[in-house]
């Protein structure tokens, strides 16, 4: 994290968010904030509520309780459209690509570029897609093929390109490296660093401890719908985080690791 990051105003403040399905509380009074340039790892078991929380921020789900503030102002995020208007972009675990459409069509889906007469401007969308995709993967050539015929890595590139092409301020990445090989994982890692240097706040949902400790400034751990911990990465070890994920609490003898090192 940049030294001044905590002193800046938070990009996002999610306050006392609740979401229940029938009697089950998927998200139970969770608060979370995110500062510019900060990479926050959101961890937890499957079904701990982290994906729910992310979907609420990205407008795919409406919370039952709680408020979301973006840049200090209360934001009504009812639809994915609202979230995008606020600069919140999401890379879904499923990638959320329309398989029969090609890369540019997917990249601009819902935000198509148009000519003066309101027609789709496919030429310009293709040119822009080539530009942004080249930045992520210079070997990506077959942009005009339907994305169903692309490799897993290429599909991931399309999904990432869609998130970063537009004016992104807050980026939610739901297991962005789950389907990727080592070189592509490294590419995503360097991209995350680059984006956070640009002042973009990133929420990284991941199961991969190595990635989390490599990339994140802070980790937020969820367990059974509750937030059980929020720690700067230098204060915890992998074992501490695992304990939080599994038991929902830190080891008994825990003290912030960075302070311990100083002592």
């Amino acid at each position, binding site marked *: 994290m940049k030294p001044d990051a905590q002193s800046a105003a938070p990009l996002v403040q999610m306050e006392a968010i609740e979401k229940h399905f029938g009697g089950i509380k998927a998200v139970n009074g969770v608060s979370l904030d995110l500062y510019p340039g900060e990479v926050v790892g959101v961890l937890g078991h499957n079904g701990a509520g982290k994906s729910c929380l992310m979907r609420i921020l*990205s407008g*795919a789900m409406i919370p039952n309780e709680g408020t979301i503030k973006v840049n200090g102002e209360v934001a009504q995020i009812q*639809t*994915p*459209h609202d979230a*995008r208007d606020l600069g919140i972009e*999401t890379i*879904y675990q*499923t*990638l*959320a*690509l*329309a*398989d*029969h*459409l*090609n890369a*540019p*069509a*997917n990249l601009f*889906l*819902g*935000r*198509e570029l*148009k000519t003066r007469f*309101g*027609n*789709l401007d*496919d*030429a310009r969308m*293709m040119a822009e897609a080539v530009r942004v995709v080249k930045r992520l993967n210079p070997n990506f050539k077959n942009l*005009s*093929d*339907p994305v169903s015929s692309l490799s897993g890595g290429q599909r991931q590139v399309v999904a990432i390109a*869609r998130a970063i092409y537009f004016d992104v301020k807050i980026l939610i990445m739901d297991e962005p490296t789950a389907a990727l090989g080592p070189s592509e994982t490294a590419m995503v890692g360097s991209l995350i660093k680059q984006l956070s240097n640009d002042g973009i706040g990133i929420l990284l949902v991941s199961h991969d401890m190595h990635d989390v400790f490599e990339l994140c400034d802070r980790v937020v751990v969820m367990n059974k719908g509750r937030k059980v911990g929020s720690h700067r990465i230098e204060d915890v070890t992998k074992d501490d985080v695992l304990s939080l994920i599994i038991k929902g609490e830190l080891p008994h003898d825990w003290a912030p690791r960075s302070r311990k090192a100083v002592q």
Partner: protein
Amino acid sequence: MADLDRGTVPASWTLKFSDSSFHKLSALLTLALLIFAFSFGNAAFFSINNGLTVLLQTSVIGLLGVGMTLVIITGGIDLSVGSVLALSGTITGLSVKAGIPVAPAMAIGVMAGAFCGVINGFVITKMRITPFVATLGMMLIARGVALQLTGAAPISRLGESFGLLGNGSLFRIVEKTGGIFPKVVFPGIPYPVILLAVVALAAAYLLRRRQIGRHIYATGSNEEAARLSGVLVDRTKIFAYGLSGALAGLAGNVLMSRLVTVQPNEGVMYELDAIAAAVIGGASLMGGVGNISGTMIGAAIIGVLRNGLNMAGVSAFVQQIVIGVIVILAVYVDQIRNRR
């Protein structure tokens, strides 16, 4: 959808056929083979006169097929078009009887069709009923309303102008011979054929060049992805079903106008012909795949088959068998290609 970007990759034409153009090519080849075979069977088949007759007979199925294609691309199906066709024609006929001039009366009929389609869309998106069930319900409702309004009796004596849309033609050249029957040099292009051409071009433009068309493909391809991308999925579907209903209404007016009589029990099972046309043309009932030109070829194949088999003296029952086999073969060929 690979032909979205034909302009950018001309190489794909020569090196490899994209999926949809391959399918279209095989469908075109089938059509050519049929025409060739029927021409051998009957000299009268391969003539301008008969060609225009086939087009005229195809126009109603073609109009229904255009709407059906839009709906099928969204991943749905519209079983109500045959009944909506009858209801629209009925409402037009009743409007004419009530003293409204023919053109506005027909507009009312088309709007009634669009209304039925929009209701389909609402039932599917807001009540979350599957398209099959929702449009099956509308199929019964629309037919019932048409029969109830007319007491199941045809409405006739609607005036000559009512028959103009279905029976008129453009560029008709008639030579006066002095006899009772003037000699028809060129029968003219029937209005329904022109109407179908205009509608098909407009729909193709809509699908390929407009945002709503892109959203129709995206909705059928991956509804959740489309929703997360900010596509208004419900509105897109309601639009598709509404347009399908409106085109069914238009087809109803064309058909009733051709008969110069409103038949409330007309159009039974037409939805199946429309679905067959779309499927032969390469549309996938799974959604996300299909295009207007394919459907037009599919409709032409059905039209040519009907006409050719008629001229060859094959019974209507056998025609159904043949068309059924063709539908299955068309989908089978498609699957073999996809497995490759």
